[in-house]
């Protein structure tokens, strides 16, 4: 595992919002092919870190390096085209388009057909086939022609994930993919995430420790804008500092 090259490197990332320091010197290496979970209490800066990795924010200091290429401050669509796909903590889909149209939009992007102004979309069998094949691997196939806004919350979460993986990113960033799901849906989500990220590098922000310890190869704990620890699940569980700062409290809260 340690022989794996770095997929994504964060070097000294610092960020603040009008003076409020959110991240103060994050160094983190995501290895090629690993499943890496980022945990930490609310307000620790996890989502900000995600937004910096995917180009929504430009960090005040530090570099983001993807496969040896500096992508610090690049625009979201450029970063997406390099093979980094992300999902969102708050459902972020195309509400009035159908499930099929949602996913097809991602398929079109992957195929570089974003600005194709000539070929008729409704007559494009190849695009439709690829979209339907993707839907068939999900529960969403039965809801193909339903507007996304009419899906249940759990189904919208699945669509969120489907959009993210439909562009076939090499690096998948999932921001709390099981947020708000019940235990059945969470189990299904874990299974789904495992399937669709097969052979890809995965970084996920997650609060649910069961999900983290089931899915992740390695875990990083972020605490007040710094990386408190990075290690395997066992190492993190055994880490006294992590226990004191985060895990102890969190697991007792989760148990209640």
């Amino acid at each position, binding site marked *: 595992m340690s022989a794996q090259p770095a997929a994504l490197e964060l070097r000294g990332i610092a960020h603040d919002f009008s003076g409020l320091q959110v991240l103060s010197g994050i160094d983190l290496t995501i290895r090629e092919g690993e499943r890496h979970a980022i945990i930490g209490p609310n307000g620790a800066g996890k989502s900000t870190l995600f937004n910096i990795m995917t180009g929504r924010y430009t960090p005040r200091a530090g570099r983001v390096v993807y496969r040896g290429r500096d992508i610090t401050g690049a625009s979201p669509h450029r970063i997406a085209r390099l093979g980094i796909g992300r999902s969102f903590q708050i459902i972020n889909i195309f509400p009035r388009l*159908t499930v099929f149209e949602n996913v097809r939009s991602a398929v079109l992007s992957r195929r570089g057909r*974003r*600005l194709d102004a000539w070929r*008729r979309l409704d007559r494009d069998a190849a695009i439709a086939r690829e979209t339907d094949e993707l839907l068939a691997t999900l529960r969403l196939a039965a809801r193909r*022609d339903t507007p996304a806004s009419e899906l249940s919350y759990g189904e919208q979460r699945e669509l969120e994930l489907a959009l993210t993986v439909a562009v076939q990113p090499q690096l998948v960033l999932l921001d709390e993919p099981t947020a708000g799901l019940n235990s059945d849906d969470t189990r299904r989500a874990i299974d789904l995430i495992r399937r669709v990220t097969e052979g890809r590098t995965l970084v996920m922000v997650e609060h649910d420790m069961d999900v983290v310890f089931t899915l992740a190869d390695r875990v990083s704990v972020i605490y007040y804008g710094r990386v408190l620890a990075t290690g395997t699940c066992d190492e993190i569980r055994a880490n006294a500092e992590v226990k004191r700062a985060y895990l102890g409290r969190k697991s007792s809260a989760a148990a209640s």
Partner: protein
Amino acid sequence: MSRAPWLGALAVAALYAVPWMLDTVRLRMVIEILYFGLFAVSFNLLFGYAGLLSFGHAASFGVGGYAVGLVLKHVAGVPLVVAMALGALAGALAGLLIGAFCVRLRGTYFALLTLAFSQFLNAIALKWRDVTRGDDGLTVAVPDITLPGGTVIRMASAANFYWLALTIVLLSLWAAWRFTRTPLGNAGVLMRENDERAAFLGYNVFATKLIMFTVASGFAAVAGVLFATFQRLISPAALDLPIGTEVVFMAVLGGTGAFLGPFLGAAVYIVVQDWLSKTSEHWPFFMGLAFVLMILFAHTGLVGLLGALTGWRRGPVPQATPARPETA
């Protein structure tokens, strides 16, 4: 566009037969409906499809009109169709330049900046008298069309102008409709639905919106070209706010949720306005009242009303559809 191709063909044939069915006064009204209908459809490419509400859509309409007028005036012997194409191109170019400033903005700021640009062009048309003839407007001399065989089609005839306008408008509508069915047209709808998510899927939001703006401007300019060559006059009013808001009204009246909704809106608007203005001098009051009632009680427009009355509903949506307004 229609379920049965022969039905469409029949409709087109009927449209070409209109000059034999109507007197000149009515025919002139139908010509007006043609170009305002196209104008409203072009507006809806921005508003209904891409979710960009422009109050300055008159800018490209007017630029198209002035451009065709200036080309016909200063280029000796230029064929009418070439001058018209140049007018459309000028309008699209104006759209490209204006759009480059506007599409980075959202909502109200976008709407206000488009309005500012159309008012800016209106001021230029008023003040640059040497070129535009200012208030008086620019007289547009429309040459006859000479076909390759030597046949001359006289443009003084309203019927001939109608056939030319009908052909141009039908081709434009077909091109615009087809455009909405391509991946790029779909990308336009993504801009309306959730441009941020689109960006994270790899779509360039600025480029996509700018292309939508330019394409919509181009079609608006085609309408402006027909307006100027039909009226034989183009004045600063073509770039002014009343035209820019009239087109919003037409689109909403007809329904922004269907491709041809705005065209229907333009037709009804022009017919009703003609009738009301003969009946009452207070016709703007009644038009305004109708607009308020439409927004409050029938915001899906006439298309939505027709759908509700006939029980006709869309089946599974095979393609991204234009906007249905949301209630807060």
